[in-house]
């Protein structure tokens, strides 16, 4: 297969970026999207004649290449993780594109994700939000016997649905407001559904929402692009759950602190 790639190139956070166009041919339809970029980079390193514009390899984040670590994330033809549904960029295959197609590749663009180089962005803000309360405060060694608290199966399943989030940031990239509410909602809901997460549920949602706002993420205006683009199909109902819990927490907060 042959493609025309328009790729965002930017030396570092301070430099000015631009699109650079590369032509690439001889790509197998079974190759993954990142393997296609690997081949582009190999040809760039080797100064291959088939590459019209010489230069450094294109930088992009990647690691597990099996759709679970959440490290990869490219904005492909205007969609986070590209045209296929329920996959990360590393699981996207070239058979999903037409031969000869032009493919536009950009980094996640969001105020809260500063650019590092080319297609690599800094998603530290997502970790910062988890540090604000995305945990259950249990010290190593202080846990009771695992079966001492039965958890209704449907709640365990709901918690698992929410916990499937891989923290890639596609929801933020997809959102016109740059909102992280699907990410935060998923973590709040995961823990709030479980009896183990209940004691801190109020504090958790308040603290996480506050830090989310401080990190520069936008608000939710019910566009649902986040759910549509989420590679793990995390549902927007978790946002509703977070909003309900947040409201309850604010109403109850006097009581809690008393």
């Amino acid at each position, binding site marked *: 297969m042959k493609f025309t790639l328009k790729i965002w190139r930017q030396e*570092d956070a301070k430099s000015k970026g631009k699109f650079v166009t590369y032509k690439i041919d001889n790509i197998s339809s079974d*190759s993954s999207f990142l393997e296609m970029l690997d081949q582009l980079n190999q040809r760039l390193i080797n100064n291959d004649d088939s590459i019209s514009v010489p230069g450094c390899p294109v930088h992009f984040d990647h690691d597990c290449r099996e759709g679970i670590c959440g490290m990869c994330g490219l904005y492909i033809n205007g969609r986070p993780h590209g045209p296929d549904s329920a996959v990360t960029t590393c699981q996207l295959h070239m058979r999903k594109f037409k031969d000869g197609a032009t493919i536009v590749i950009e980094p996640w663009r969001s105020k809260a994700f500063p650019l590092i180089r080319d297609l690599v962005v800094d998603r530290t803000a997502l*970790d910062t939000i*988890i540090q604000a309360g995305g945990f259950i405060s249990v010290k190593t*060694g202080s*846990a009771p016997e*695992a079966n001492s608290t039965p958890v209704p199966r449907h709640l365990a399943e709901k918690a*698992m649905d929410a916990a499937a989030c891989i923290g890639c940031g596609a929801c933020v990239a997809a959102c016109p407001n740059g909102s992280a509410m699907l990410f935060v909602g998923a973590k709040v809901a995961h823990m709030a559904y479980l009896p183990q997460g209940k004691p801190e549920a109020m504090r958790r949602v308040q603290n996480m929402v506050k830090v989310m706002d401080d990190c520069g993420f936008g608000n939710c205006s019910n566009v649902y692009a986040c759910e549509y683009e989420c590679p793990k199909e995390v549902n927007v109902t978790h946002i509703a759950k977070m909003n309900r819990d947040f409201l309850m927490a604010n109403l109850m907060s006097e009581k809690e602190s008393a």
Partner: protein
Amino acid sequence: MDLNAKIPQGPVETKWTKYKADAKLVSPANRRKIDIIIVGTGLAGASAAASLGEMGYNVKVFCYQDSPRRAHSIAAQGGINAAKNYPNDGDDIFRLFFDTIKGGDYRSREANVYRLAEVSNHIIDQAVAQGVPFAREYGGFLDNRSFGGAQVSRTFYARGQTGQQLLLGAYSALSRQIAAGTVELLTRRDILDIVLVDGKARGVIARNIVTGEIERHAAHTVVLGTGGYGNVFYLSTNAKGSNVTPAWKAYKKGALFSNPAFTQIHPTCIPVHGDYQSKLTLMSESLRNDGRIWVPKNKDDVEKLRKKEIQPRDIAEEDRDYYLERRYPAFGNLVPRDVASRAAKERCDAGHGVYTGLAVYLDFKDAIERLGRDNIEKKYGNLFQMYHKIVDEDPYETPMMIYPAVHYTMGGLWVDYELMSNIPGLYVIGEANFSDHGANRLGASALMQGLADGYFVLPYTIANYLADEIKIPHFKTDTPEFDEAEKNVKDSLDKIMSINGKRSVDDLHKELGHIMWDHCGMGRNKEGLEAGIEKVKELKKEFWSNVKVPGTQEAFNEELMKAGHLADFIELGEVMMRDALNREESCGGHFREEHQTEEGEALRHDDKFAYVSSWLFKGEDEAAELVKEELKFEAVELKTRNYK
């Protein structure tokens, strides 16, 4: 060199209790005076950092990814073992211990493995309390499933994402400590050397992957939780960034590297399909609970299948060879990984492989008929989806095609009972050490070991060392030892950048992978290993004279990082093959073709090789020296493994 594994006296079931009773402690007030460096944020590193932070130590934790949650433990699919015996099917701590020793083909240390089984139940308690959403029955109690090498159901799971959920649990505990200020997190750091002061591990040299800046970090002790070295084969189920570099730098500072030849080839991975391929994807062992493995009996059918003239479903039941069920009726499709992998290779070598010739079927037809599609989807939905996306075939409709691939490395840095290497103050946890899995790891035991080490073993054993360190003030980094280490790191980076040859890092890495797979893969022999060693030596010369790394050092430069990792993998490759050459027996994942039974099963030689083979660095261009630790079996009897 004398090795002391420091195994406590007494019967195996009382050793850990006795150890804990005798171990020295560090009081809460003194812990804040102690600095600990932890490299890696997988299950072992994250759980250790969280636990030590909670106790009040000053912890600095490093990862090469942008977030600790990305460490490759996240990709573990099937489950985690524990001896809870909830199904009432005869499990207990001794049986989990015994199965792990036997599964490892009697090449692991009894005392460590018993302790692993002993703490396994606490891991499940801890994870549940953290909010890990394990699968449950309708009554709300935890569900279990079976894994290879066991006749009980002792595996806890969270769909096909157990590693992800356990890692997120450890990551959440770690995040809590970062917020509390006990742990400092440094992401996007490549650890390029271990610094020793007066023979003790006292710090690391890190490269900031974003800026290229070289940093010095000092501490009272250094813990490596850096994972395995499967990427020496280029193609493996490991993450692209997984590397041996921190462990290898420790080796070059005198830490022993043990059993490097013990690598696990996982039987159920998606087969290789092209030379541009960058990694292999695992299909969880849990699938062997319900999937049946087969190849066509008739070679005519094989030909037609390869040419796609017929479909697998066209092969009649009597023309299918369910070779695992045929050869191993007692364990059937759930034999341990090494056995299943070799059996697949045997069938493919005999000409029965489908697809490219290097694939067998994993068929869910019977399970779907028996349990219904919905139930199969609930259990394995994400795995089936992953397979469908990669191969472009629907595994609900046609059997999966699978083939063995490099997955896990049982070998690693030598550690004693306290998880300390032979360098004082250097601890090694999780897959990075050698201690618990012998020559073959059982499924669902890697998660158990990583978390056992981090949550329940290291916090006790490290105190025994640190108790004598409380009077030593915080270390400074402006010392001659740090100067020298930093200079060596910089020189090495300068040298790589200056070569400006003709071959890319990936090109050289693929060549290394081919050498390792051909000469030190599923079947090994003397001739092949000797030839392989020569090839790796040549490749080392080629690397240092002809590698091409574009860009600059003082910037984000992935090629430079990869080059450094590859240089270490090449050196490791030679030591792996020396180890494989030395071990003239077959055991677990190490199959020496000269040593097999008439039926083609692995043939151990306990009289000569019941030892851990550790390798001591003797200098560049010198052969490493073999150091032996004899394995003593007191609680179990050495026996030939039998899964028939």
